């Protein structure tokens, strides 16, 4: 419940500029671009720890496009869930109904997450630093916070138990900060960060901009970052969402809203 969506991207941040950030591309929203970009990094063999919101959208999109074998594990205890529509919460009934098995929450965290059986974990946050460390706990001082956020939930151990952490987080100087107000989870295993502007990868311990989404400039990404952003020499533009990806995504979203 700390993944993007609940703890970060989706809900505690107001939707900033869905679509508008794409400077006229206009045929998809920035949320859709983020979901598509993240889904492409999942493979047919991936076992993913999935949260609600964009991560769930990305993982379910992967299952419906290039990675039908991708296994979805929700921290509520559902292993191998195959939802037909986007779940409203990580504990939706359909996850249990379509799962290979449902286990208890203590078992999920002990045997499955800590057990080292999960390849990919999605995380969101309110703040990220250049090393991929995340804050989803407080803005301001812990004892006298300016904003009390939901807290870490699964994040501290997801961040250290999965092989690859995928972060999904809208890019802004408020979120991409020089210094976290609180370190909720460690960045060591962050593989990349998908934002509404592009994709960053952790290279040599520091996040580096490796892709900008269509219609986004490197300067925009720099301005949206609270530290001096490293830019990869070989930076490329993200491949725009394909017709197939968008169709699959919208089918999912529509069903989820019905």
């Amino acid at each position, binding site marked *: 419940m700390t993944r993007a969506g609940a703890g970060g991207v989706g809900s*505690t941040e107001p939707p900033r500029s869905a679509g508008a950030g794409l400077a006229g591309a206009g045929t998809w929203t920035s949320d859709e671009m983020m979901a598509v970009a993240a889904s492409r990094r999942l493979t047919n063999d991936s076992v993913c720890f999935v949260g609600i919101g964009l991560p769930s959208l990305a993982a379910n999109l992967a299952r419906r496009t290039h990675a039908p074998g991708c296994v979805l594990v929700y921290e509520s205890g559902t292993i191998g869930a195959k939802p037909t529509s986007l779940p409203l919460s990580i504990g939706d009934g359909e996850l249990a109904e379509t799962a290979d098995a449902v286990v*208890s*929450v203590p078992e999920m965290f*002990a045997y499955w997450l800590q057990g080292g059986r999960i390849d990919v974990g999605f995380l969101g946050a309110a703040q990220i630093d250049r090393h991929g460390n995340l804050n989803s706990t407080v803005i301001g001082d812990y004892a006298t*916070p300016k904003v009390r956020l939901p807290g*870490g939930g699964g994040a501290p151990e997801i961040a*250290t138990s999965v092989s690859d952490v995928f972060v999904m987080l809208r890019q802004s100087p408020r979120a991409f900060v020089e210094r976290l107000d609180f370190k*909720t989870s460690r960045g060591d295993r962050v593989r990349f960060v998908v934002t509404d502007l592009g994709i960053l990868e952790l290279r040599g311990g520091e996040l580096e901009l490796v892709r900008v989404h269509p219609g986004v400039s490197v300067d925009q990404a720099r301005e949206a970052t609270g530290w001096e952003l490293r830019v990869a020499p070989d930076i490329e533009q993200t491949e725009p969402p394909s017709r197939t990806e968008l169709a699959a995504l919208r089918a999912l979203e529509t069903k989820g809203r019905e």
Partner: protein
Amino acid sequence: MAEIVSLSDAVRELVADEHVVALEGFTHLIPHAAAHELIRQGRRDLTLVRMTPDVIYDQLIGMGCARKLVFSWGGNPGVGSLYRFRDAVEHSWPVPLELEEHSHAGMAAAYAAGAANLPFGVLRGYAGTDLVAHTRVAFVECPFTGEQLAAVPAHRPDVGIIHAQQADRQGNVQLWGITGVQKEAVLASRHSIVTVEEIVDEFERRPDSVVLPSWVVDAVACVPRGAHPSYAHGYYERDNDFYVAWEAISRDRDVFTAWMREHVLEGVPA
């Protein structure tokens, strides 16, 4: 052996001011009716334990029932903030709220340790986070490998409260679907209250279901729709509109107070 009683009797008999109380149900089977009864009976200075203090604890906290919260994720899932929780932490309204904050893995290990009658649970966690400085966690050394691992104190609530789909007439309980940490919450607690959708003559056992035998439960109360606005697998769906609507209710002290008066304080006790 569990006694089958009314919810108000169960709460009156088993839950006292200053108790440590865990109401569990991980996104599913959240014991809202029981929380409302705690509010109606005016319990104070509770230490509330729960992995995901969502709307149910927002209500308890906003009504001033809690002195301390032991938790790992406090939000309105899929919607946003818990404003009563935030107001208590940020502005001590209506009373100050002490926090003992964990990760999900730490909370789960603490419940499992409690159920196993151990004083602490062990996990590979917390290290390298700022949580370490702000919660009850210690590090123990593996006597075989020398590795440092996190230890969390076991949860041993005075009362564990859950909602389940069914009890039989002997007070045995069955729940299924997402079963979360409910077995551990009951087994870790000194006493337990289970509200159920219905009381049946005999269970039809389900895959991945949890059965709690009557002799580990103190009180069973039949409270149909006792998990609303969360859901009871096989009985009713999550009332997502309510979670969305809670955002506006919770955001304002007066709106919240009026809503609670109308819907809970003056509501019909179960």
